[in-house]
């Protein structure tokens, strides 16, 4: 390569340029613009001016700390639920799936062949007050007439868990699949019980999958607004719903930008702490599958 000299050294820049420009203009620059917008003041009619308006950030927190915290709490609960629900499944498929491993994975990925919004709307349909589940139960007198699931925290957390569960199963499966079964046998030969072999051999080896799964579940859940938009009510509003409303309905771009930035800053700190623990390549490798 060195023999071809200058042209070869330019090649990566030329090949990578168009895509790089697109990402620079439509990913990096927008982030900078959003940061600048978050420090501006004014209103939609008169226009906005850059005034180092840091108060947008304090106002964002003062007005919507409830929704910020609620999003964090929901994301923690959903991530923990996903981990608990996904681990046994990923474990069984990885160790006992045999020749049908990819079939099981395919079945778990089936929801991705249906639009995210339709999937969530389908849950709204299933959980409807007079729908296919609650309707018959109410007619049979097993539930009070005013019982409802929609617009409750349960519905939103249920929807989020359903929608993000596959994201947890995949990295767990990848990590567990890599565990050499002969290590487990070795543990048994060294008198470890099944529980002990799991606790001291299998689980530690699956930790990269746990970290990756937690990461790629927590981040989108914390910023989700489709589930609370469709399944939730006024008491379950998440920060994503507020940001969307302030941008599109109130047109208060500086305040909305400050909120997006607060959310992103919180999440980025988390992502890079995790990426440091795992190494960027590994996280990307896992999230690709």
């Amino acid at each position: 390569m060195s023999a071809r000299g200058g042209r070869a050294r330019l090649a990566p820049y030329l090949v990578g340029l168009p895509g790089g420009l697109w990402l620079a203009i439509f990913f990096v620059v927008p982030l900078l613009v959003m940061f600048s917008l978050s420090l501006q003041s004014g209103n939609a009619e008169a226009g906005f001016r850059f005034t180092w308006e840091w108060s947008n950030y304090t106002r964002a927190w003062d007005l919507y700390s409830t929704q910020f915290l609620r999003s964090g709490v929901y994301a923690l609960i959903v991530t923990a639920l996903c981990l608990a629900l996904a681990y046994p499944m990923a474990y069984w498929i990885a160790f006992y799936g045999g020749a049908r491993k990819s079939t099981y994975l395919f079945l778990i990925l089936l929801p991705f062949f249906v639009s995210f919004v339709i999937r969530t709307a389908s849950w709204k349909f299933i959980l409807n007050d007079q729908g296919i589940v609650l309707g018959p139960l109410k007619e049979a007198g097993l539930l009070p007439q005013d019982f409802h699931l929609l617009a409750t925290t349960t519905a939103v957390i249920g929807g989020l868990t359903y929608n993000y569960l596959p994201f947890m199963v995949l990295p767990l499966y990848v990590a567990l699949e890599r565990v050499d079964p002969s290590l487990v046998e070795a543990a048994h030969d060294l008198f470890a019980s099944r529980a002990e072999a799991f606790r001291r051999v299998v689980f530690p080896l699956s930790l990269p999958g746990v970290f990756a799964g937690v990461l790629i579940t927590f981040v989108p859940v914390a910023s989700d607004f489709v589930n609370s938009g469709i399944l939730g009510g006024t008491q379950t509003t998440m920060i994503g719903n507020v940001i969307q409303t302030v941008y599109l309905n109130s047109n208060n771009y500086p305040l909305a930008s400050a909120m997006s930035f607060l959310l992103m800053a919180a999440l980025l700190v988390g992502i890079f702490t995790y990426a440091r623990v795992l190494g960027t390549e590994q996280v990307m490798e896992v999230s690709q599958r």
Partner: protein
Amino acid sequence: MSTVATRQAPPEVAPAPAVPGARRRWTRLILPVYTWLMILYFSLPILVMIVFGFNDTKGRLNLRWQGFTLNWYRDLFAIQGLTTALRNSLIIAVISTIVATVLGTTVGLALGRYRFRGKGAYDLVIFSAISAPELVLGASLLSLFVTVQFVRGFVTIVIAHVAFSLAFVAVTVRARVLGLDPDLEEAAQDLGADPWTTFRKITLPLLAPGIVAGALLAFALSIDDYVVTSFVSGQVETFPLWVFGASRVGIPPQVNVMGTLIFLGGVGIAVGNALLARRQRG
């Protein structure tokens, strides 16, 4: 210690293991049964979507089973707003897939093949574009468009979709580039092929599976996107946007039918792809 004892004991002499043995066989069923129950849970909303596309519902409320009908398949395009939204989604998905695949492939090549100054920053941008929450992508693009006063609509949706699918295509192609055998390209050059011919006849066909996978991913991401699109759509409605709006008042059965058809199409492509790959390997 007890494990050693039972293991050394010949099976006939083992002291009445009937109860623990039966229990072990029973506990062995827990995980498979659980996995299948979870798979059922995963498919529940899909089944409901498919079944209620055949529901003979009166009016807009499609809530309880009222009899079998094929009316909604016949009247698939009866709702004009929905049809327009679906058409918009398809056009946007095709255009953004083509652009994202071409650009993403070049990025994947550059990152997979070369070491160059600035590669670390480039990798970081790709990583951030993949892991950034969609909400942030949408909000920041909206910030850009309102600041430069660019009218939101069809063009801004395509721009946004390319921006988020490009990075996914890039990492898919890069993985393929990293797995390439450099000997093959050298052999072509030794046989007198110029760089462009080598690329066209050797590199591109070897990368093709990665490029196709990236393109399918880009298409799926685009046609399904609600979050980013909701920020940059302006007056244009796409299929997910229309369904989200309709979910407040009740979703017409035509949506179930369209969802079913898209589902069957996607599953068909995936299964066909897997069978094809198996035949090539076998």
